[in-house]
């Protein structure tokens, strides 16, 4: 009985529309055990946890393969409610709390202690009144279990972030049936001291027999609190070891490294040599982009190179291009070819022949309801007056449909965009082809400097290669300087000359693409 695992996940598989994100995941967890789950963004950690928690998105995208056994019983959760009833609790990265309610009310939401009233006999138990005193006691107890000091009567909206995080954990702890708690990057928002307190309370939970799955990027915390560390990469578990046997360096290696023999082949071959003339220089850049705050970035981009910007999610790498291009509030100094570029004005950037391919393809990158012709020609038409016929001495600027069709057909051909014809609507294309349309849109502007943000996010392997090749070709043939932001280090190494790693809203360091993987890994975690 002692040895029967609490949770067993066997051969878990999951694909999103043919895109394999998890294959053959095995994970076992005993009572009171604390498992650290690490891996780069997109390694499949969150998907795995969503499967375990029975989230709707999994079922809507075709379910999963493999078995989940809880206390040696096979389970198949239809919704998070089932998972909660079975004793699984999850604390998400994003808070799911009601800001206007107090900590007590949030902790006991929908599980309040109630008193019968006259009305509840007459109507139904929905007319019961709340037993505030009992609620306070219960909330205080679960907060005590957590071992931290938060005010149970304070409203969530007036709490510091750390306390909100604790409230969420306290809510899970107050459930009597809790056997397994999933913590998805709980320490990301905490100060060092708060994180310390949280680790203590994780130890406490483990002593009480609650098993914990702890997802974090802070590897030291894993070593401090976990019994076992599981490393995931590209949808497979690459390593599972006892924590006392491993070091941070080893974990980093497992996280970022691919199989060692392909090590050299992956790096971009034709490195740009020689002249290193700075074309774009960024000084003291800050960008207020929610979730991707840039704090203080100094960066120089050389003429004709492809500069990669990498780093973990939420560290601010996406904020850099978005801030420079004026899509989010930014400050600091940006000079391009000796000329100062004003911030917070997309138009001025575009006039200085910058172009930007946004990571938010559907939100910013495309006119989903319009034709490919419109999507590709629109910025060039509006910024540079291309594809227009002038009448009455330029008073009337008429859309030149044939020129638009011509340029669209050219890019459809060049980038191998799979579509019916140039009149097809952008929303009908697959993700990879939509991304190519976004590139075509930027290419049509014939920029001197191109920002590309997450160009391969959510597209399949074949399209990935095509997109990256198109970028390399554009850089080489048109002598365009490219700044490419990506969460995938391998992709950056294949494409870029130099790679800047952003961590904690600052550039942690710039390395040549053929530098050791571990060096990149170290930089990624430097300011976390």
């Amino acid at each position, binding site marked *: 009985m002692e040895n029967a695992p609490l949770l067993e996940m066997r051969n878990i598989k999951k694909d999103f529309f043919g895109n394999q994100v998890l294959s053959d995941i095995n994970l076992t967890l005993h009572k009171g055990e604390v498992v650290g789950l690490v891996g780069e963004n997109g390694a499949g950690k969150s998907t795995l946890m969503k499967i375990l928690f029975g989230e709707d998105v999994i079922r809507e995208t075709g379910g999963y393969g493999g078995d989940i056994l809880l206390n040696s019983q096979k389970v198949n959760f239809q919704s998070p409610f089932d998972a909660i009833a079975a004793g699984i609790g999850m604390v998400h990265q994003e808070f799911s709390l009601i800001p206007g309610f107090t900590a007590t009310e949030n902790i006991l939401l929908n599980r309040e202690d109630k008193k019968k009233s006259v009305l509840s006999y007459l109507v139904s138990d929905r007319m019961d009144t709340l037993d505030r005193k009992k609620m306070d006691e219960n909330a205080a107890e679960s907060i005590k279990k957590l071992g931290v000091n938060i005010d149970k009567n304070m409203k969530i909206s007036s709490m510091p972030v750390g306390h909100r995080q604790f409230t969420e954990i306290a809510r899970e702890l107050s459930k009597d049936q809790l056997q397994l708690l999933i913590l998805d990057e709980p320490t990301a928002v905490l100060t060092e001291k708060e994180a310390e307190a949280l680790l203590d309370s994780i130890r406490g939970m483990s002593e009480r027999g609650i098993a914990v799955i702890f997802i974090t990027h802070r590897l030291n915390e894993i070593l401090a609190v976990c019994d076992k560390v599981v490393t995931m990469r590209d949808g497979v578990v690459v390593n599972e070891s006892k924590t006392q046997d491993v070091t941070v360096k080893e974990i980093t290696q497992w996280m970022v490294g691919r199989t060692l023999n392909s090590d050299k082949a992956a790096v971009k071959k034709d490195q740009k040599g020689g002249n290193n003339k700075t074309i774009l220089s960024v000084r003291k850049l800050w960008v207020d982009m929610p979730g991707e705050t840039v704090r203080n970035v100094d960066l120089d981009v050389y003429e004709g190179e492809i500069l990669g910007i990498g780093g973990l999610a939420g560290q601010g790498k996406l904020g850099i291009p978005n801030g420079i*291009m004026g*899509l989010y509030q930014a400050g600091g100094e940006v000079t391009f070819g000796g000329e100062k570029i004003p911030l917070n004005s*997309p*138009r001025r*950037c*575009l*006039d200085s022949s910058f172009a*930007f391919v*946004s990571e*938010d393809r*559907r*939100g*910013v*990158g*495309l*006119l*989903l*309801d*319009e034709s490919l012709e*419109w999507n590709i020609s*629109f*910025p060039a*038409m*509006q*910024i540079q*007056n291309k594809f*227009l016929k002038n009448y009455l001495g330029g008073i*009337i*600027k*008429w*859309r030149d449909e044939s020129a638009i069709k011509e340029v669209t057909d050219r890019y459809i051909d060049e980038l191998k965009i799979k579509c019916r014809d140039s009149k097809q609507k952008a*929303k009908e294309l697959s993700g990879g082809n939509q991304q190519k349309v976004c590139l075509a849109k930027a290419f049509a502007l014939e920029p001197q400097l191109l920002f590309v943000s997450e160009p391969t996010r959510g597209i399949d392997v074949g399209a990935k290669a095509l997109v990256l090749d198109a970028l390399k070709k554009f850089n080489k043939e048109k002598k365009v300087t490219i700044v490419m932001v990506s969460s995938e280090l391998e992709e950056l190494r294949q494409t870029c000359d130099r790679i800047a790693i952003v961590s904690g809203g600052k550039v942690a360091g710039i390395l040549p693409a053929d530098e050791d993987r571990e060096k990149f890994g170290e930089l990624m975690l430097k300011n976390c």
Partner: protein
Amino acid sequence: MSEKTQGILSKERIKGLVDNFGLPRLIIAGFLLLLLIVAPFVGADLPTQISNIINRFSWNGILVLAMVPMVHSGCGLNFGLPLGIISGLLGATLSIELGFTGAFSFVMAVVLATPFALVFGTVYGWLLNKIKGGEMMIATYVGFSSVSLMCMMWLLLPYHSPNMVWGMAGKGLRTTISLEGYYTQALAKILQINIGNLSIPTGTILFFALLAFAMWAFLHTKTGTAMTAVGSNPEFARSAGINVDKIRLISVVMSTWLAAIGILVYEQGFGFIQLYMAPFYMALPAVSAILIGGATVNKATITNVIVGTILFQGIVTMTPTVMNNMIHLDMSEVIRIIVSNGMILYALTRKTEGTK
């Protein structure tokens, strides 16, 4: 085998047609056709009825056209149409007050209405830029409040023309002002075609065609393209360097000006200026017409305007006539209200937002 294939083909063709034209439009068109067939049997004169539909189309066309720019820029349906209509009414009453008569008073009404439309439109557009996402709600209230404000102003403004003010008091405008001697039928009379009971107001239709063409042309220019893009995805437009607020403002001003012109054209056909609460009742028919025509909250074409106006005006003129003749009871107003509001309700429940 081949017959079967053909069967499938024609089935597909019909399905394609339905998809293109839209099932609701087919049903409404079918209903209208049925009414036209039934009309002679219940004793309604068909040529008169057809003239009626064409006339009403010519009166209302421009008011419906006024919906197009705001739909394109993503401001939704212009429920604030009364604001533009008020500009038109100010132009009309000022033109009479200043003593212009005959067809020339129409020209002067247009000229005098324009500055009001531009100013009101700018303020209205500025307001709509402050509350992105809730445009249609705010637009409705702009309509309400402007009508109420003008209800007072019509009484207070120092108009003196004896043709317009209350007879006894000698001040304050009347609710209905006859345009006899001013611009009644000013456009309709141009090249008018009369065959028996059938009469076609060629001039009014040409005037509508001119404005519709101008709108179509505008949407093919650089600014027009930007307007459509702003409506389709404002974030995309912003990242392409478009000043989204400015484009939206232009669309609101255009819409307001078209509403001002639209009401003047309506008056010349109808023969009267209607003040006070009248502008209030003009927005909903225009909204429902363009929705029936197949427009959605952020897509509208000139074809939508023409088809919608004909279908809507056809139904609201034919249904009461045929019904009254059948049951010998005057139900026209009730039916008109049920049909037009029902259409709006139907169209709004099916409102399709842009893909996100």
